């Protein structure tokens, strides 16, 4: 009988060898530390852990700190880089109920451009839906972004009813919501198809949707570019759209998408932006409006 057969040492060696073998096989099988083969499908989005709703970001003193950060840093920087030209600010000046801002999405700069185009009052009551699987993959990053922009995690897989529910809770508790219904940044600057979440939320909560179009952000900071470059930007805000009783979620989403696409056209679009009379009435100072009543 050989010295190495059936002894306890042989067993231990065999177990360790088997384990190493397994690790090695798995490593080879899934190409650790090597690029994904191009024949493999794109990595699918994941359903993240049940998110925290980041309630801390929407209470004092965080709101005051955010106000200082935005006014001292974010808004001046946005102004210097893009000098955004805003059309239709009257629609967000005197909001008497929460709204969903639905904009096209071609750049990381979009969020700051939208916040820049809002009035102080509207901005202070606005939360931004940020992709849960992107911004909240690393909790620290997610929390920092939330401190700056008042973001909350929003699933873009389309199946997380719980998250849509938390968004509708936010709307119901008086917060405006910035949504990018395309789901992710456009790869080429063109508007992609809208996902139906925006329609669902609007229908569920009866909230008006304010269509917005951002032109030029793709040139400022396209996908895969790490740093922004200065460039002119135009933000156009349309008049609030309310879902009709008979309108389905997808139909309403399609209508919002059409509105955003129409806003991208060069001349003013009275159908979406409103006639001057409508815009003039919308911008009437609230105290006077009550005075007239």
């Amino acid at each position, binding site marked *: 009988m050989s010295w190495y057969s059936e002894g306890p040492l042989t067993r231990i060696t065999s177990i360790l060898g088997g384990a190493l073998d397994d690790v090695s096989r798995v490593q080879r099988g899934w190409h650790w530390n090597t690029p994904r083969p191009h024949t493999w499908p794109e990595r699918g989005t994941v359903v993240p852990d049940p998110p925290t709703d980041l309630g801390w970001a929407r209470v004092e003193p965080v709101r005051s700190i955010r106000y200082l950060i935005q006014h001292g840093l974010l808004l001046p920087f946005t102004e210097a880089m893009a000098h955004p030209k*805003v*059309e*239709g*600010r*009257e629609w967000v000046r005197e909001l008497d109920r929460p709204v969903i801002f639905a904009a096209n999405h071609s750049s990381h700069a979009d969020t700051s451009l939208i916040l820049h185009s809002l009035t102080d009052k509207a901005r202070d009551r606005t939360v931004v839906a940020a992709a849960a699987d992107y911004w909240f993959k690393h909790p620290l990053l997610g929390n920092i972004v939330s401190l700056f922009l008042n973001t909350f995690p929003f699933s873009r897989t389309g199946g997380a009813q719980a998250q849509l529910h938390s968004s509708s809770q936010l709307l119901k508790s008086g917060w405006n919501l910035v949504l990018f219904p395309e789901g992710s940044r456009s790869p080429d600057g063109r508007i992609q198809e809208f996902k139906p979440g925006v329609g669902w939320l609007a229908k569920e909560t009866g909230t008006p949707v304010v269509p917005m179009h951002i032109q030029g952000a793709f040139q400022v900071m396209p996908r895969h570019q790490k740093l922004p470059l200065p460039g002119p930007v135009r933000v156009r805000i349309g008049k609030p759209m309310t879902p009709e009783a008979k309108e389905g979620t997808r139909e309403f989403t399609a209508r919002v998408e059409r509105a955003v696409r129409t806003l991208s056209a060069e*001349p*003013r679009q009275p159908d979406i932006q409103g*006639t*001057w*009379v409508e*815009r*003039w*009435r919308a*911008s009437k100072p609230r105290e006077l409006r009550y005075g007239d009543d």
Partner: protein
Amino acid sequence: MARPGAVIEVDRNTPPVLFHFGEGIRLEKLPLGARIVYPPDPLDPIAHPERAIKRALAKPMEDDPLKSLLRRGMKLTIAFDDLSLPLPPMAAPDVRQLVMEEVIDMAAEAGIEDLHIIAALGLHRRMTEDELRHIVGERIFSTFHPDRLYQHDGEDPENNVYIGKTAEGEDVTLSRRAAESDLVVYVNLTLVPMDGGHKSMSTGLASFRSIRAHHNAKTLLASRSYMNPPDSALHHSCIRQGQLIEDTVRVFHIETTVNNHAFPAIASFMQKRETDWTAQDQAMFLATKQMTDIAPVAFKRNVFHAMRAPYGLTSVQAGQVDAVHDQTLDAVRKQLTVRVEGQTDIVTLGVPYLGPYNVNSAMNPILVVCMGLGYLFNFYRNKPVLRKGGVLILTHPCRYEFDAVQHPSYIDYYDEVLADTTDPIEIEKKYEMRFAEDPWFRQLYRKSHAYHGIHPHYAWIWAAHAMEHAGDVIFVGADRDVVHRLGFKCATTLEDAFEMAEQTVGRYPSVTHLRMPPIMLADVE
């Protein structure tokens, strides 16, 4: 009640007097016996401007209430004065904004879809978006700009129409939009008696062809002064043109006047008479003087141009142009008039950093002349404060500096025309059409923020009457080469200037200092 203007005789106890000196200030001791003319204190403003405006629109003069003139489906145009007044620009909200908001509210109520708002800038420069926003306010700007709120272009061949000739043969043109409107509402702000009335439409919405009928040396030499419309050939011509315009298009005039509260609290010492200066005013003077002495010109300019005047609305009237303007002139005169007995041999004036044509830019030498010999000299009724052949002494550094964006044609005018001659009539004969029709200046006027090519000539002839009237003009503390190019004399100090003046007016001359701004109108008996 506001204190009226005053004429004070300098004695041993009179404190030194403030002289404006471009973007700087000086304190000067005037000779014993000299007179200092102080403007009246600001009149009390109307407590509720919005109510006054509503009342004026509801009960206009010799016209129907504005509400009854507005109807669905009509073509309505609102025109308003540009940033050349008031000076300094008014602290927000501008009176024009308040008036226009009221008019637009009425138009919205009437369901008028076709409403355009035009800045009636004549041949002045286009305003920047921020300047425009400051005048009309954020609400009007965001609702109407840029497709329904825009600036008049006097060189646009498509959008100006020829209306006809007056009995005196003056051509009249008008903005096409205004000419084709069912109603034009003109919103005016009158700071000095020269503004408003028929002049608003006939210069603000006109082209060179129309404006040259009265903006010429002959007319201005016959306007004594253009700050007193009854004695002004310029205004007589504007009235003839305006009457033709009123025959073509229905115009509803709204005119407003403001008091002369030109300086904010931080510079209140400039608003006060020196005898009223408190220790705080003296400290502010010293601080300002030190700052202006040592700071770079660009810095000083930015500080001064950022100043906003706390003007208060003193009257608002609406309706038929002549009736409205008579009342406007009464209100302006009530604020500005100071009675002055007799003329003097020497008049001294401090030229400030700002005139109507250099808002947010440098006051170039031609504009210094326009301001000193043009506007400030002409603030009189009956007779000039200076006797014929007397000496005008002005304080201004008068540097060779031009804003190439706003005043490109001024550079050529100074370098070429004034090197040739300074005689307004001769210049007009030789150079008027060359500057007016220069394609590059025309392009800059239309697309950039430049004054029209002919504008330096208008600025120059604005001083024609003073140049003809004064025996000598002496600039104190100015750049010698520049002043000699302008055809005047230069002195280092005010004392030197008085000695030089004695060569023209003789020994022991009478001296009057016009302490402006704040502005005033000397009613000389």
